């Protein structure tokens, strides 16, 4: 039973990735101006464009480039970016460019997850345990206010207060790669803080909603009538049923922390993947954008996969469907 579900979802994941690869390719090829145009910028001339295009191998038809790329991808070769190649003949291996960025991204999102998830799940639980109380209302109000603040406002606020005025932390999470423990913490502090604020609100809201929803079900009433203690009701009876939706929100937030934090990475000049991808789009570095996008989609698929598995395992009824 479990094996089947596992296989089924794996298949689904792969299918999704294939669809994505096609979407990405079409998407990136409708962009006005190609990498040659962007490299030469205002100074481009038809001849120099043609010359550079030839150098960069942009003169092949689209579908050929797609299959070549897909092939390479399957053999684990992400191909070469035009980065730094200029009119030279040697570009940069994309894997080489992505590796450090990926590390940075995982570092940041990992830290955020470690702080945000336990914090917000427990806050959500507390809110759900005492619905309607002042505590609950405070949590709800706070989360709503934070949800409604644009990221860049939160970020800029923190920078002005903590970095420019108090001078406690650096204004930019600039990573030179050789930071020691403390420097690393200082560098990560700001974006982490921002993202914890951004990510938590949703998980809190979700946990609260999910648990509350379970709390209103007959078997919880039964548990009460069986004289089960409140703590046990929440943690054993309610939380287990709520796990499904909660892990899903967590998963989606993690996916977002990997791919969606362009704004934060820009404001803190944090060399992560999301910003790199945007720059990739803006510089029409197609192989590069495609690689990034595939990474993001893979992350998403993987996370959702884990989430689904978790909710299946957490729930006997899904474990053994009627």
């Amino acid at each position, binding site marked *: 039973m479990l094996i089947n579900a596992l296989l089924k979802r794996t298949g689904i994941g792969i299918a999704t990735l294939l669809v994505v690869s096609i979407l990405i390719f079409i998407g990136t090829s409708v962009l006005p101006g190609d990498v040659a145009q962007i490299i030469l910028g205002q100074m481009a001339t038809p001849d120099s464009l043609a010359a550079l295009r030839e150098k960069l191998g942009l003169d092949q038809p689209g579908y050929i480039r797609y299959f070549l790329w897909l092939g390479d991808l399957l053999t684990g070769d992400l191909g070469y970016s035009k980065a730094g190649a200029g009119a030279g003949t040697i570009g940069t291996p994309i894997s080489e460019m992505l590796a450090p960025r990926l590390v940075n991204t995982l570092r940041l999102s990992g830290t955020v997850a470690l702080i945000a998830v336990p914090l917000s799940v427990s806050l959500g639980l507390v809110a759900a345990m005492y619905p309607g109380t002042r505590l609950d209302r405070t949590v709800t109000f706070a989360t709503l206010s934070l949800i409604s603040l644009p990221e860049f406002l939160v970020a800029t606020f923190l920078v002005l207060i903590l970095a420019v005025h108090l001078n406690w932390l650096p204004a930019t999470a600039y990573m030179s790669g050789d930071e020691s423990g403390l420097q690393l913490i200082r560098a990560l502090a700001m974006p982490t803080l921002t993202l914890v604020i951004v990510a938590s609100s949703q998980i809190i809201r979700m946990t609260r909603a999910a648990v509350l929803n379970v709390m209103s079900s007959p*078997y919880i009433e039964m*548990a009460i*009538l069986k*004289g*089960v203690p409140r703590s046990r009701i929440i943690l054993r*009876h309610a939380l*287990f049923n709520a796990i499904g939706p909660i892990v899903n929100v967590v998963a989606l937030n993690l996916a977002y922390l990997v791919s969606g934090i362009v704004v934060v990475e820009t404001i803190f000049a944090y060399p992560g993947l999301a910003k790199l991808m945007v720059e990739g789009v803006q510089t029409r570095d197609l192989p590069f954008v495609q690689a990034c996008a595939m990474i993001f989609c893979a992350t998403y698929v993987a996370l959702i996969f884990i989430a689904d598995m978790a909710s299946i395992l*957490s*729930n006997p*009824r899904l474990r053994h469907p009627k």
Partner: protein
Amino acid sequence: MAALLEVDRLVIDAQTDGGALVPIVKGVSFDVAPGEVVALIGESGSGKTTIALSALGYTRPGLVFGSGEVRLHGEDVIALEPERKRRLRGGRVAYLAQSAAATFNPALTIGEQVTESAVLHGILTQEAADARAV
């Protein structure tokens, strides 16, 4: 002989949209002696379950005890403080819902849920309970 359960002029109110209280159980009184079987009969929604549940000092969300008492062995279960209520429930009084299926938690094994109550109230050890359950 002393009644096991005495329901005395029990009033249970429901809160309306306006927040005003509307009594849905209007001063019910009856006694139940040990070994005696009492049946409440009435159309759906007339408040049978509501009255029954009051024997555990419990009302559904949206309902509140208005006045009157529900005495078990002479002590008012409505007035009990939470911890005592908890001991009472499943300890001395058990509730059997009409649609039993709905009252089982999909996330837990039936076994655990059947034995849970007895174990929690220290009536049986988990092992003994499991043995009894099957």
